[in-house]
């Protein structure tokens, strides 16, 4: 299978890339690792006039830590996160989610930021970033803005990003107190999209939850932030009862469809189970980090 013909540019600097998008952003697709875009091009679901390959931009493959947040550059691959042992200790949900993405070969090429920008409702990183309360740094020729992931996903494969913008990094706030998270994913086989997956992240003070994030994968038109379930946790202790209630509310927020992977009712119930399971794991991890 060949993609339809396209122009190709692989700039060596960010300024050059932003200049290209300023001129031709409306007809262009930005490509990092290409693990989502190239399949779409081959199936001709996407036929951009221009593919802007940012894979050669310098200094974007770094995971940085500064000013209370973690910064994941636009060219950091899934495998980089998966194998970062220090990261796995501090923010366990990142490595856990990375481990479940696609397969090892795709993880060697695909990027975290690219996956978020692709905005597939079955994408894993979107839910993880919702749970973590992450922000995207978007650059264009006219400047820079910061977009909360919570307002980023608009529809399947549709985001708040403008045609002339490139996301250069994701910023993940790092809690000063005890925090923990978990990513639970149900997939039929390695490389399949999630039937259902759930990301949870909690910050605790004593036993009380001070911040809760819950993101749902494959159960709606976008990755879903389960806001009501999060609210039900904040200010409360993580008891079996509060966890059960949050799980019920998260399942209510899910809007899945019947398909070959399962019925809508089944998927909703998996959300409920995964929120419960994830919160128990997250609590354990938060207490471990504290100890």
């Amino acid at each position, binding site marked *: 299978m060949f993609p339809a013909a*396209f122009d190709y540019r692989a700039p060596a600097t960010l300024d050059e890339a932003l200049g290209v998008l300023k001129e031709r952003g409306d007809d262009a697709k930005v490509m990092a690792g290409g693990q989502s875009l190239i399949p779409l091009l081959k199936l001709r679901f996407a036929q951009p006039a221009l593919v802007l*390959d940012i894979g050669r931009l310098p200094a974007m493959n770094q995971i940085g830590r500064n000013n209370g947040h973690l910064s994941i550059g636009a060219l950091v691959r899934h495998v980089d996160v998966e194998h970062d042992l220090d990261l796995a200790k501090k923010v366990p949900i990142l490595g856990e989610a990375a481990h479940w993405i696609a397969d090892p070969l795709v993880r060697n090429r695909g990027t975290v930021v690219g996956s978020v920008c692709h905005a597939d409702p079955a994408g894993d990183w979107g839910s993880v970033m919702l749970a973590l309360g992450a922000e995207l740094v978007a650059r264009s020729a006219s400047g820079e803005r910061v977009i909360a992931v919570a307002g980023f996903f608009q529809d399947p494969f549709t985001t708040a990003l403008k045609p002339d913008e490139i996301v250069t990094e994701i910023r993940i706030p790092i809690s000063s107190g005890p925090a923990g998270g978990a990513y639970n994913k149900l997939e039929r086989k*390695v490389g399949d999209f999630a039937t259902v997956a759930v990301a949870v992240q909690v910050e605790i003070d004593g036993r009380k939850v001070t911040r809760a994030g819950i993101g749902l994968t494959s159960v709606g038109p976008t990755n879903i932030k389960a806001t009501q379930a999060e609210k039900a946790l904040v200010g409360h202790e993580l008891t079996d009862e509060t966890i059960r209630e949050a799980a019920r509310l998260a399942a209510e927020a899910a809007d899945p469809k019947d398909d070959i992977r399962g019925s809508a009712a089944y998927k909703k119930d998996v959300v409920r189970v995964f929120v419960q399971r994830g919160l128990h794991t997250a609590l354990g991890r938060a207490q471990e980090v504290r100890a």
Partner: protein
Amino acid sequence: MKVTMRVNGAERTGDVEPRVLLVDFLRTNLALTGTHVGCDTTSCGACTVLLDGDPVKSCTVLAVQADGRDVKTVEGLAQGGALSPVQVGFHEEHGLQCGFCTPGMMMVGTALLENNPNPSEEQIRWAISGNICRCTGYMNIVKAIQHAAKLQQAAAAAPSQGAAVPAGGGE
């Protein structure tokens, strides 16, 4: 567009449209047909090659993305007429039935042993989890990679001996 890449140690150039996939560049332009096209949808791993040492699906990489980079295909495994330890492993442990997935499996095995000379069975199974064998010969593929690990370790312990054996007539 003109592309130049190092393929199996030798510099190769070509003139390709940007939409040409790396696997097609290798097979059509360079006549390296050892890399197979299976599903052509990023699912099966038959087209696995090493790009700067990492196993990737060459049906999901554009040839232009490999410009200036290092590519290794199954043709690059045997050195000086001697099979690589992974090739010996697949030969001796019968790590193939129809052989279609074999080039991809061997490239993944090669990359795994490069980074992890003594992988557990679980680590081997995890490494090949993006590669599908429709003969379902996974047992022997795992054994073949385990055998290759032993050969490689033996070769490392006695560098003058070497673990490689002369290539057979089948290639």
